[in-house]
């Protein structure tokens, strides 16, 4: 295992500890930030799970009163928001952070400090959103938060009425501001990943050699930067409506309730692809590895990803079939929605074709990938059913839709993320997860998930609307609701086994070594966990699945890149080439990406500035929520102060000498 042997002096005085809270707060290392994302998203995942658990307890029997209707509204709203914005998406971003630079042979992302800022803003947003529980009520109008419920006070025939059933619906202000904060962070992540992938690939890592996880990251990032602004604008208008008395969504002031829906879904539909795309990428990594085959139809996979992203922007109104846009609009959006099934089908068949004839190892990760295929196809089928407008009039806002969204988000995105956890955990922690416990957790989660959510198709067709706090006993909905709640207990057991597995592995897990799965990508060519500088020497990529190419045609190790050298020889790392070109600029994250050479590897210094900036913006956020202009202005001034500090702060960086990799 490589270790840092020396740090050269002569850069800048810096206090740096390798562990401790401060080192995590100041870190700009993409791997540490990735771990922060993964751990935080897992915490939010269990909060969201707890909310779901309470809802299923309430719905297990008719006319139950486990929680009040008011709390139930908050529970389903916060469950959706937490799972989508604070669990699944940041878990994907965590893997992207850790793995994409490794997979393209880079030493960090393009903007390490911006990366840290993204994380802190995501955390701030999540905390602001959830602080509603303690400070006057959590958001309670559903995750898509339709107008006019979301503006609360509403004038009907000259009478001011509160359309929001909550006590004072303060939670929606937390929604507007909290998601705004997290959204800024996500947007910066998107920019960061695109620049990283476009500019920082190792020599030979041509676009059509990129691992598919990198491709999905690139396309996800494009979706992020073009979809999130619509939501930002929407939240901005909502904030003005709630705090400054404008009437964008208030009909009495000339507003349009559909404006919220249009802007929301222009963002919201690409958002579901932002959730599922990285999952596609993980599946495209896992299945080839455990099938010992290269991915089937690589080019068609890339084409399918791009096609799905392109179509993602022209289907948003299929969420609004029943608002009365007319048959023509509905038909057009029905057609574009169904077209998406084509590239998605291409991907499904390519994954199956990859397994055919492969030497398959049914590890836990592979089990989750196969479980993904099964459940995601079921979710895709119900999706096509929902895309038929006449049928949608029946399915809309029923449990059929709840079943669909959970089949694509749990059976799709979450299963893929679990596959990713079992696949990449050894790289991230240096230890293996227990396969025996892993298989237990898979089967419990898989069975529990299907027992919970498959009956919801029946409930929906029988007419049970979503988001009701209870149902009367005489509606014949009792059986499948009880079954669904029973399934939740199995699912929960599976998650507990998973947690036990994590704990066991971190305490006494078997050491993983660099390449426990006989992997194919660059991330398996370096020690586990990856050293601070990732690659002792910049690797030369000679084909798709670069490490597999070396295992097949070379000696199984990546060849260090030598500029101008036509026939590179395998030399020890950290060796003479490439004079340092203008690195060390302290731009907005413009830290150096120096190549390994005589002076060691140039790495950016840790800095608390992103953390401070996030705190300042959070102060401004609370000032806005509670309408205290002084605090808002103070927070914004602090924000600008730290923005300009970040732009002009010169980061000389430091140099690390890598030790030669063992073996």
């Amino acid at each position, binding site marked *: 295992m490589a270790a840092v042997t020396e740090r050269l002096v002569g850069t800048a005085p810096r206090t740096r500890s390798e562990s401790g809270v401060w080192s995590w707060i100041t870190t700009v290392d993409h791997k540490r930030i990735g771990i922060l994302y993964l751990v935080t998203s897992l915490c939010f995942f269990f909060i969201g799970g707890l909310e779901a658990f309470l809802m299923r307890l309430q719905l297990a029997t008719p006319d139950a009163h486990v929680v009040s209707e008011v709390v139930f509204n908050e529970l389903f709203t916060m469950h959706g928001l937490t799972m989508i914005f604070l669990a699944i998406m940041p878990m994907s971003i965590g893997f992207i952070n850790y793995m994409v630079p490794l997979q393209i042979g880079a030493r960090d992302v*393009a*903007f390490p400090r*911006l990366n840290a800022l993204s994380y802190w803003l995501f955390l701030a947003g999540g905390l602001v959103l959830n602080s509603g529980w303690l400070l006057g009520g959590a958001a309670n109008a559903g995750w898509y938060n339709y107008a006019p419920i979301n503006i609360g006070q509403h004038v009907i025939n000259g009478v001011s009425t509160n359309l929001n059933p909550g006590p004072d619906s303060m939670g929606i202000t937390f929604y507007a501001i909290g998601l705004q904060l997290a959204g800024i962070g996500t947007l910066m992540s*998107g*920019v960061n990943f*695109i*620049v990283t992938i*476009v*500019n*920082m690939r190792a*020599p*030979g890592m041509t676009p*059509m050699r990129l691992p598919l996880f990198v491709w999905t990251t690139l396309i996800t990032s494009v979706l992020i*930067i*073009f*979809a*999130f*602004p*619509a939501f*930002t*604008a929407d939240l*901005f*208008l909502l904030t*003005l409506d709630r705090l*400054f*008395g*404008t*009437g*964008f969504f208030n009909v009495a*002031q*000339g*507003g*349009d309730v559909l*404006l919220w829906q249009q*802007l929301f879904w*222009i963002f919201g539909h690409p958002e579901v692809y932002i959730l599922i795309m990285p999952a596609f990428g993980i599946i495209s990594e896992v299945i080839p590895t455990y099938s010992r085959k290269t991915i089937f139809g690589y080019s068609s996979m890339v084409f399918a990803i791009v096609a799905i992203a392109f179509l993602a922007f022209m289907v948003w109104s299929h969420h609004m079939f029943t608002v009365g846009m007319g048959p023509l609009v509905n038909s057009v959006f029905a057609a574009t929605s169904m077209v998406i099934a084509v590239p998605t089908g291409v991907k499904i068949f390519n994954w199956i074709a990859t397994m055919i004839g492969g030497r398959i190892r049914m590890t836990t990760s592979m089990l989750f990938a196969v479980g993904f295929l099964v459940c995601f196809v079921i979710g895709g089928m119900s999706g096509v059913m929902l895309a038929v407008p006449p049928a949608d009039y029946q399915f809309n806002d029923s449990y059929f839709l709840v079943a669909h969204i959970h089949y694509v988000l749990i059976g799709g995105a979450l299963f893929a993320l679990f596959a990713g956890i079992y696949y990449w955990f050894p790289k991230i922690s240096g230890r293996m997860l227990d396969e025996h416990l892993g298989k237990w957790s898979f089967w419990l989660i898989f069975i529990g998930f299907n027992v919970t959510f498959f009956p919801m198709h029946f409930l929906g067709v029988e007419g049970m609307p979503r988001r009701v706090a209870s149902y009367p006993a005489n509606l014949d909905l009792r059986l499948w609701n009880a079954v669904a709640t029973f399934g939740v207990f199995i699912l929960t057991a599976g998650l507990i086994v998973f947690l036990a597995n994590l704990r066991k592995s971190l305490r006494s897990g078997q050491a993983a070594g660099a390449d426990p799965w006989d992997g194919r990508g660059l991330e398996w060519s370096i020690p586990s966990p990856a050293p601070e500088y990732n690659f002792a020497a910049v690797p*030369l*990529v*000679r*084909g*798709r699945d670069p490490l597999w*190419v070396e295992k097949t*045609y070379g000696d199984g190790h990546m060849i260090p*890149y030598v*500029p101008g050298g*036509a026939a590179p020889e395998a030399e020890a790392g950290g060796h003479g080439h*490439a004079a340092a*070109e*203008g*690195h060390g*600029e302290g*731009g*907005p*994250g*413009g*830290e150096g*990406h120096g190549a390994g050479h005589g002076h060691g590897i140039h790495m950016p210094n840790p800095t608390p500035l992103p953390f401070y900036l996030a705190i300042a913006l959070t102060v401004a956020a609370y000032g806005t929520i509670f309408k205290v202009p002084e605090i808002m202005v103070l927070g914004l001034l602090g924000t*600008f102060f730290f923005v300009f500090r970040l*732009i*002009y702060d010169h980061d000389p960086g430091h140099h690390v000498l890598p030790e030669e990799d063992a073996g």
Partner: protein
Amino acid sequence: MIEPSHSGEFGAPRGTYHEATPAENNKLGIWLWLASDCALFASLIATYLSLHGQTLAGPGPKQLFDLRITVTATFVLLCSSMTMGMGLEAAQRCDYRGVLRWLIPTAVLGLAFVGMQVFEFTHYVLQGLTLQVSDFGASFFTLVGFHGLHVSFGVAWITSLLIYVFRKKRVDQADAWRFEAVSLYWYFVDVVWVVIFTVVYLMGKVG
């Protein structure tokens, strides 16, 4: 070593490998940020277009807009683009005095634009157009005000850059990207203004 013939699939990289510099990363990052900002302005312009007919009890665009103020403001902002271009050209030549000569007027012109907008907004509020009175008012102030905030941030950015070079008393080649970044942003804000001027003011007066 056996190498398959289809070198697109396998083989050493062809051409020269160029490691991206931080400056190149920064510039691409700015481009992407501005692309994203385009979508943000598009959302606000769409909001304005869908709500601007809702004047209700408040005044409407025809009686309110005075094109003499806005045309002057537009002229001022477009001039600032020219001075910004000259300033960028000076920065690329590492011409310290040239940078000061062109960027100080750019900041002043930007500030003048913001000042005219403040004057214009005050004028409208006095005539009864507020955020609350109608959705024409709300969407107008939101869209145009949001652009005004962009200009203000641009002025702050240019000012900070001026302070930065003033303290160094010179401009280095390594700083060129800073000027390219701020000028990209400035041109973007100008182009958005041309759209807003057309959609809000010209169409408001004519349509």
